[in-house]
C-alpha cells in the first residue's frame, strides 16, 4: 500500500490541507503544533475510523465549527487506487447519531470503474488484515506507543515471538505453571497448608507419642518394684495394728463400762442385805391393791343407786291419781272424736236453711210470673199431662194455620182486585183507540164509494186486473210500431250497401270471367261467374224480405186498446166517489178527455191509476189497523170479565176462613175455662206457663226434702250438746248450758290429754325403781366376794396382818429390781466378751482407776489410728501403682503410635515422591526452556536482533527473550545480558523499535504496509540516528515510510542519507 494524497478537511488544528506523497520516504517537517502528529492520527482515523471521545487528540475533533474528516488516497499492492472519505457525522449536525461517521471507500476496478466498499473489505484487501490495534502499535507509532512494551505481549503477537515448533511456548508455560501449582499444593519449604505440612505435623505428633510409649517398659519396671515394696510394708503394719487395736479396745471397753460396773457392784451388795420374802405371793401388792380398788368402786356404785331410788320415789309422789279422769276419759275422748262431725252438721244446717229460704223466694217469683192470683195450691193442682200438652199444641197449630191462610188469601184478594182494575183500564183504552181510528179512517177515505170493505177490495182487484190487461195490450202495440219505423230507416240504408255489394260483385264477376277467359280457362271463368251471380242474387233477395215482415205486425193491437180503457173507467167510478170522487171525476173528466185522447195517449191513464193505487194502498192499511184494534178491544173485554170473576171467588174463601176461626176461638176458651186458667192466655204462652209450673212444682218438692234433712241435723246437734253438758256437769258439778258445754269440752279434753301424759310418766318411774333395787342387791353380793378374796390373799403370805403384808411386798419388789439391775449391767458390760476377756476386764477395773484407764486408752487409740492412716495411705499408693501398671499394660497393648508413624512416613514418602517427580519435570522443562531462550531464538528475534545491532552500531549483538516472563534482554557481543528495564532510555527505545521492525518484517501478510514514525529519534544520538536512517532507507525498499519530525537536522539528515526523500514542510 502506498499513500498518495492526504486531504485533511478538518482534523485537529488542521483545516483544508492537502499533502501529496510520492517518494518512498517522506518527511513531514514542521515546528511544534504544526500538526505532524495530527497527520499521523488522521491517517489512522481514515483507515480505521475515528477513535472514541476518550482520546480527543487522536480523535482530532476540530475545536470550532466545521467539518471533521477528510480524504485519503492510496494505491494498494496491485497499484489500484483507493479513495477513503470519512467524516464525523455529529459535526454535520446529526447529533442523534453522535458516534456515527460517514464513510465512502472507493476502489477503482480494472476497467476503470469505481466501486464502493466497506470497512471490512478495506482492512482485508488493502490493509493485509492488520487489526486496528496492531496498526497502531506497529505501523503508526509515536514515542508513547513505542514505550508500551507490553503491547508486544499480546497473544496476537506472541505467536511471532516464539518458535513455531513449540506452539508459541504457551503449553510450556502452562505445563510449568501447572507443575508449580501442583508442587505448591504438595509441599512448600515453610508452608503450613500443604499436604506435607500436615503429614509432618502428624509425624511430629506421632514421634512424641512413640517417645512416650518407649518409656513404658522402664515405668512398668519401676511400678512393679514399688508395688512389691509397699506390699511388704503393709504386711508389717498389719501385724502391729492388730495388736494395738486389741489393747485399745479392751481399755476403751473398761473405760466405757466403768460407771455400770460400779453400779453393778453396789447392787450386788444391796441384794445381800435385803430381808427374806420368799412366801410372798407373786404380784401380791398389785393384786391386793386391785381388790382394794374393786371394793371401793363397789361401795360408790351402791351409794349412787340408793340415791337414784330416792329420787324416783319422790317424783312418783308428785304425780296423783284423778278419779274423774279415770271414769270419763274414754267418753271425753269419744266426744272429742265426734266434735268435727258435729261442727260439720251445724255448718250444713246453716247452708240448708239458706237454700230453703232462697227456694221460697224463687217460688214466689214464679207464681207471680204465672198469674198474680195464683197460689201454691193452684200450682200443685195444675196437671200437666202429655194429652194436655198435645191439646194445646193442636189448638196452637190450628191458630197458626188460620193465620197463614188468611195472610195468603189477603194477598190473593189484593192481586185479584188489582188485576180487575187493570183489565178495566185496558178495555177503556182499547175502545177509545178504536173509536179514534174509525173516525180518522172515515175522514180519510170518504171518497171510497162502497161501504163494505170487501166490495171495495173486490172492485179494486178487478180494476187492477183490468189495468193489467190494458197495460199488456198497450205494451204489445207500442213495441211493434217503433221497430217498423226503424226498419224503414234501415231499409234505406241497407240497399245502399246491397247495391254497392252487388256492383262490386258484378265487376268482380266480370273481371274474374275476363281473367279466366284471358287465361284461356273458359270453364273456370264460367263457374266463378255463376257463383258470383248466385251470391248477388241472394244479397238482393235478402234485403227485400226483411222489410216486408215488419210492416205487417203493428196493425192488430190498435183495436184491443180501445175496449180495455172503457172497462177501467167503469170500474174506477164504481170505486171512487163522494167529495173525493167529485174531485176525482173532474180528473176523470179530464181524464176522459184524456182517455179519449188516450186512445192515442195511455200515459194519462197510468198516472190516474198510480194515484188510485196510492189511495187504495192507504185504505187497505187502515182497514187492517181497524181490524186489529177491533180484535184488541174484544180481548180486553174478555179479560176484564175474567178478573172480576176471580175476585169474587177469593172473597168467598175469606169469609169461609173467618167462620172457622171463630169456631177455634170457642174451643180454646172452653179449654182454658176447664182448667181455670186466665182467659187471656194464648196457646203459645201456655207452653211457657207449663214450663214455669213444672219449675214451681220442682221447687216445692226440693223444699220438702230440704226440710226433712234440716230436721235430722237439728236433732243430731241437740243430742251432741246434751252429751257434752253431761260431762262438763260431771266435772264441775254444776249444770252448764249445752251450747257452752260444747265449747267447754275443749278444755276438758286438753286436761284429759295432760292427765294421760302424767299416767305414762308414773308408769316409767315405777319400772325404774324396780330396776335400781335389783342392781343394788347385785352390788352388795359382789362386795362380799371381794372382801373374802382379800382375806385369803393376806393369809397366803403368812403375814399377820395387812400391814406386814404390805411391808413384805415392798421388800420383794426391791429384790426383784436389784436382780434385774445386776443382770442388766452384766449384759451391757460383758455381752460379746468371752470369759477370758471378762476376767481381763474385771481385773483391769479392779486395779485401775478411771484416770489411769483414760490415759492408757488414749495412748493406744492414737497409735491405732496412726497405723490405720499409714495403712490407708499405703493401700492407696499400691492401688494407684496397680492402676498405673494396668494402664501401662493396656496402653502398651493398644499402642499403635509406631505403626501410625510408619504409616505417616509412608504417606509422606508418597507425597515426597510426587513432589520430586513434579519438581524434576518442572526442572527439566525449565532447563530445556533455557536452552531455547539462549540458543534457539525465533525468527522475529533474529530480525529484531539484526536491527538492534544495526541501530546501536554493533554495541549490542542481539535481543533475547526470556520465556518465563517474556521479558526482553539485550545481549552485548561479549555475551553479557542486560534487561531492557536497565537499558538507557535511547537504547531501550532502539530495542523496542528493533522489536517492532522485526515483527513487521516477520509478518508476511503485512508486506508493503506503510510505516509511519512520529519523531521517534529524539532520544537517539546523532550516530544512532544515522544508523536509524540507514535502516529506514533499507526498509523503504519494500514499504513506504513517512517520518514526522520537528527537528530540522533530522530532516536534513534524511535528505542527506536518503536520496529521493520527499520533504514536506508544515507551518
Amino acid at each position: 500500500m502506498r499513500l498518495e494524497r492526504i486531504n485533511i478537511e478538518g482534523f485537529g488544528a488542521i483545516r483544508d490541507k492537502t499533502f501529496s506523497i510520492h517518494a518512498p520516504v517522506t518527511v513531514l517537517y514542521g515546528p511544534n503544533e504544526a500538526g505532524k502528529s495530527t497527520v499521523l492520527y488522521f491517517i489512522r482515523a481514515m483507515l480505521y475510523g475515528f477513535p472514541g471521545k476518550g482520546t480527543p487528540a487522536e480523535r482530532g475533533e476540530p475545536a470550532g465549527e466545521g467539518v471533521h474528516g477528510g480524504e485519503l488516497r492510496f494505491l494498494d499492492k496491485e497499484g489500484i487506487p483507493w479513495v477513503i472519505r470519512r467524516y464525523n457525522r455529529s459535526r454535520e449536525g446529526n447529533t442523534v447519531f453522535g458516534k456515527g461517521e460517514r464513510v465512502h471507500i472507493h476502489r477503482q476496478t480494472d476497467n476503470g470503474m469505481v466501486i464502493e466498499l466497506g470497512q471490512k473489505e478495506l482492512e482485508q484487501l488493502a490493509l493485509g488484515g492488520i487489526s486496528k490495534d496492531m496498526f497502531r502499535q506497529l505501523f503508526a507509532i509515536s514515542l508513547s506507543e513505542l514505550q508500551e512494551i507490553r503491547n508486544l505481549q499480546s497473544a496476537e503477537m506472541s505467536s511471532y515471538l516464539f518458535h513455531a515448533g513449540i506452539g508459541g511456548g504457551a503449553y510450556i508455560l502452562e505445563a510449568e505453571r501447572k507443575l508449580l501449582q501442583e508442587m505448591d499444593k504438595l509441599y512448600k519449604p515453610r508452608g503450613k497448608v500443604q499436604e506435607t505440612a500436615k503429614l509432618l505435623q502428624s509425624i511430629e505428633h506421632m514421634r512424641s507419642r512413640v517417645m512416650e510409649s518407649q518409656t513404658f517398659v522402664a515405668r512398668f519396671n519401676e511400678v512393679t518394684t514399688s508395688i512389691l515394696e509397699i506390699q511388704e510394708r503393709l504386711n508389717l503394719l498389719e501385724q502391729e495394728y492388730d495388736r494395738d487395736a486389741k489393747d485399745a479396745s479392751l481399755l476403751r471397753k473398761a473405760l466405757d463400762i466403768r460407771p455400770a460396773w460400779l453400779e453393778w457392784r453396789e447392787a450386788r451388795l444391796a441384794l445381800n442385805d435385803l430381808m427374806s420374802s420368799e412366801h410372798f405371793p407373786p404380784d401380791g401388792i398389785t393384786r391386793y391393791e386391785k381388790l382394794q380398788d374393786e371394793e371401793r368402786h363397789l361401795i360408790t356404785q351402791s351409794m349412787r343407786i340408793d340415791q337414784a331410788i330416792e329420787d324416783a320415789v319422790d317424783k312418783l309422789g308428785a304425780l296423783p291419781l284423778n278419779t274423774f279422769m279415770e271414769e270419763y276419759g274414754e267418753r271425753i275422748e269419744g266426744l272429742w272424736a265426734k266434735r268435727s262431725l258435729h261442727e260439720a252438721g251445724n255448718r250444713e244446717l246453716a247452708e240448708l236453711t239458706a237454700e230453703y229460704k232462697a227456694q221460697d223466694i224463687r217460688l214466689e217469683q214464679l207464681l207471680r210470673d204465672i198469674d198474680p192470683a195464683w197460689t201454691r195450691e193452684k200450682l200443685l193442682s195444675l196437671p200437666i199431662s202429655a194429652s194436655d200438652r198435645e191439646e194445646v199444641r193442636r189448638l196452637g197449630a190450628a191458630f197458626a194455620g188460620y193465620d197463614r191462610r188468611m195472610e195468603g188469601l189477603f194477598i190473593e184478594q189484593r192481586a185479584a182486585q188489582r188485576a180487575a182494575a187493570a183489565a178495566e183500564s185496558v178495555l177503556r183504552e182499547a175502545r177509545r183507540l178504536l173509536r179514534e181510528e174509525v173516525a180518522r179512517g172515515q175522514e180519510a177515505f170518504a171518497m171510497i164509494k162502497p161501504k163494505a170493505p170487501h166490495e171495495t177490495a173486490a172492485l179494486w182487484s178487478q180494476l187492477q186486473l183490468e189495468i193489467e190487461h190494458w197495460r199488456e195490450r198497450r205494451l204489445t202495440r207500442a213495441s211493434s210500431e217503433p221497430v217498423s219505423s226503424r226498419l224503414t230507416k234501415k231499409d234505406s240504408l241497407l240497399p245502399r250497401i246491397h247495391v254497392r255489394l252487388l256492383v262490386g260483385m258484378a265487376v268482380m264477376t266480370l273481371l274474374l270471367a275476363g281473367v279466366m277467359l284471358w287465361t284461356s280457362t273458359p270453364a273456370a271463368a264460367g263457374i266463378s261467374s255463376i257463383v258470383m251471380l248466385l251470391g248477388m242474387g241472394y244479397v238482393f233477395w235478402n234485403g227485400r224480405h226483411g222489410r216486408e215482415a215488419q210492416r205487417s205486425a203493428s196493425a192488430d193491437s190498435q183495436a184491443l186498446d180501445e175496449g180495455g180503457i172503457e172497462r177501467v173507467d167503469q170500474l174506477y167510478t164504481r170505486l171512487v166517489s163522494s167529495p173525493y170522487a167529485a174531485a176525482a171525476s173532474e180528473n176523470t173528466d179530464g181524464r176522459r178527455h184524456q182517455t179519449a185522447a188516450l186512445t192515442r195517449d195511455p200515459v194519462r191513464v197510468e198516472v190516474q191509476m198510480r194515484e188510485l193505487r196510492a189511495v187504495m194502498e192507504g185504505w187497505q192499511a187502515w182497514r187492517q189497523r181497524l181490524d186489529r184494534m177491533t180484535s184488541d178491544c174484544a180481548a180486553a173485554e174478555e179479560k176484564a170479565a175474567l178478573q172480576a170473576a176471580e175476585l169474587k171467588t177469593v172473597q168467598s174463601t175469606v169469609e169461609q176462613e173467618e167462620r172457622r176461626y171463630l169456631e177455634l176461638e170457642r174451643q180454646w176458651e172452653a179449654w182454658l175455662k176447664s182448667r181455670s186458667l186466665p182467659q187471656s192466655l194464648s196457646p203459645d204462652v201456655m207452653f211457657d206457663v207449663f214450663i214455669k209450673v213444672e219449675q214451681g212444682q220442682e221447687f216445692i218438692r226440693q223444699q220438702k226434702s230440704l226440710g226433712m234433712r234440716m230436721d235430722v241435723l237439728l236433732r243430731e246437734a241437740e243430742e251432741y250438746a246434751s252429751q257434752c253438758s253431761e260431762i262438763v256437769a260431771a266435772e264441775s258439778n254444776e249444770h252448764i248450758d249445752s251450747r257452752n258445754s260444747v265449747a267447754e269440752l275443749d278444755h276438758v279434753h286438753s286436761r284429759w290429754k295432760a292427765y294421760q301424759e302424767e299416767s305414762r310418766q308414773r308408769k316409767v318411774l315405777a319400772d325404774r325403781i324396780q330396776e335400781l333395787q335389783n342392781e343394788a342387791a347385785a352390788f352388795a353380793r359382789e362386795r362380799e366376794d371381794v372382801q373374802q378374796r382379800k382375806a385369803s390373799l393376806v393369809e397366803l403370805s403368812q403375814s399377820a396382818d395387812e400391814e406386814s403384808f404390805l411391808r413384805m411386798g415392798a421388800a420383794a419388789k426391791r429384790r426383784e429390781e436389784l436382780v434385774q439391775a445386776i443382770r442388766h449391767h452384766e449384759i451391757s458390760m460383758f455381752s460379746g466378751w468371752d470369759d477370758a476377756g471378762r476376767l481381763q476386764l474385771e481385773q483391769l477395773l479392779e486395779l485401775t482407776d478411771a484416770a489411769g484407764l483414760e490415759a492408757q486408752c488414749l495412748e493406744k487409740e492414737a497409735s491405732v489410728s496412726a497405723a490405720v492412716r499409714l495403712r490407708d495411705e499405703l493401700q492407696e499408693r499400691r492401688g494407684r501403682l496397680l492402676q498405673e501398671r494396668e494402664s501401662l499394660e493396656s496402653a502398651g497393648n493398644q499402642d499403635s503410635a509406631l505403626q501410625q508413624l510408619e504409616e505417616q512416613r509412608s504417606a509422606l514418602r508418597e507425597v515426597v515422591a510426587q513432589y520430586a517427580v513434579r519438581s524434576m519435570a518442572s526442572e527439566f522443562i525449565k532447563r530445556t526452556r533455557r536452552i531455547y531462550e539462549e540458543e534457539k531464538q525465533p525468527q522475529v528475534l533474529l530480525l529484531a536482533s539484526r536491527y538492534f545491532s544495526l541501530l546501536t552500531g554493533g554495541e549490542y549483538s542481539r535481543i533475547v527473550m526470556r520465556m518465563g516472563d517474556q521479558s526482553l534482554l539485550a545481549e552485548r557481543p561479549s555475551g553479557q545480558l542486560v534487561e531492557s528495564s536497565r537499558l538507557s532510555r535511547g537504547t531501550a527505545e532502539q530495542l523496542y523499535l528493533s522489536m517492532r521492525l522485526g515483527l513487521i518484517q516477520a509478518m508476511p501478510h503485512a508486506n508493503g504496509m506503510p510505516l509511519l514514525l512520529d519523531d521517534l529519534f529524539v532520544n537517539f544520538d546523532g550516530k544512532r540516528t544515522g544508523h536509524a536512517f540507514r535502516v529506514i532507507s533499507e526498509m523503504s525498499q519494500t514499504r513506504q515510510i513517512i517520518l514526522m519530525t520537528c527537528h530540522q537536522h533530522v530532516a536534513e539528515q534524511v535528505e542527506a542519507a536518503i536520496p529521493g526523500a520527499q520533504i514536506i514542510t508544515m507551518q
Partner: protein
Amino acid sequence: MASFRFIHAADLHLDSPFIGISGLDDNLRSFVQESTFRALERLVKLAIDQQVDFIVISGDVYDSSHISLRAQLRFLDFLERLGAEGIAVYVIHGNHDPLDSTKLSMKLPSHVHVFGVEPGSVTAKRRSDHQEVAVISGMSYPTSKVTDNIALRYPAPLSGLYHIGLLHANVDGDPQHETYAPCSRKDLIRSGYHYWALGHVHTRRTLQESPYIVYPGNIQGRHVRETGPKGCYVVDVDDNFNTRLSFRELDSMRWNIIEAPVDSCRDVDEWRRSLASILARTASENANQLSMVRVRITGRGPVHRQLEGGYVLDELLADLRRKEAAKGAKCGYRGCVWIESISLQSGDSFDTQRLLAEDSFVGDLLRLVRREQEHLQAPDGVIAASLEPLLEHAEIRALLEETTPDEIEDWVRRAEELTLGLLLRDRLQEEGAEP
C-alpha cells in the same frame, strides 16, 4: 543317640511397625499390628501340635532397641505357655534386640535359656525321657552393632551329641542386609556343628545342607520387599543325625507385588477391570492370609495419562481399600487384598525414540533427561536441583536419605513421562483422534 524334633525360628521382630503402608483404618491397623503376635501364637500351637522337644530362636525376637512393653509381655506369655508344655526355649538376641536394650526386669523361667554376651553352650533334653539329645551354642549381641566374626569364637563341639549353633549374622555378606557379625560359610562348615540355626536375613534360604546352614526367614513379612510365605522350620533329627527340614507357614499377612500393565487397555475402566481380576487371583491364591499388595502399573498406553493426572488412582485406591476394609472387618481379613501402594511405572504411548531424534522442544527435553539419567548424583544436576527444596525439612531429608537409587531413577522416569504428557497433550490428542 536319640531322635528329637525342634523348631528353628528367627527374626520374630515382635511388634515391628510395618513400613510403607498407609491409609489403614483402626481395625486393619490392629490386625496388622497383631500379625507378628499372631505368628508367635501359631508358633506356640505348632510346637505343641508337633510335640517338639525345644525351640531355638536365632535373634531379633524384638524389633528395635526400644522394645515395646507389649512385645515383651506377649513374649513372656509365649514362654510361659511353652513352659507349661515343658518345651524348652533357647534364645539369642540380635542386632535389633541386643542385651543392652531396655527390657522388663523379670526372672526368666527355667525352661528358657538366653545366651549371654559370650558364646556359650547348653545341653538340651528330650521331653519324653529327659535324655540329653543336643548341645546348643549361641551368643547374644551385647549391643546393636557387632562387627567381628563371632562365629569363630563359638565353642568347638565336644560330646557326641547333635550340635546346634545359634547365630545372628550375615553370612557371606549379603549386600541387601546390614553386615553384622560377618562370617563366611566356610567358617561355619569348618566348625563341626550339625546345624547352624541362623538369623538376621529375612529371606528363607538354606545355604548348605551338610551341615545345615539355614535362614528360616522371619515369621511374618513386614514390608513389600519381604514377599512370599513366612514361617519357621520344623527340624527332625533321627538317631543317625539325619536331619530333615520342613517349612511351616506362620504368617497371617502376606506381601505381594503384582503388575497391572496398561498396554492393552483402551480406557481406565478396562484397566480397572484387569486390575480387579488380578487382585481377585491374588486373593484366591492367599485365601488364608491378608494379602498386602503393591500394584505396579507398567506398560505404555493412553490410560497412563489419565492415571498420572487427576485423581483416578487416588479414588480407585480409596475405593478398593474401603471395600476391603469393610469386607475384612467382617471376615477377619482372611482372603482380603489390601493395596499397600500403587506404583505408577507406566508411560504414555509415544515413540520416545522418534521424539529423541526430533528437533523440537520435546526432543531437546528428552535429550536433557537422558543426559541427566547418566549422572543421577551430579550435584548441579536436575535431580539435585529439584530435590533441594525438600531438604529443608529434617523429616523429609531423612526420608530422602533412605531413598534408593532405584527409586530416584523411578522418579526421573515418572517425571519424564509427566513432562511429555503435559507438553505433548495436543499432539497426543491429535493422534488419539486419528484412529
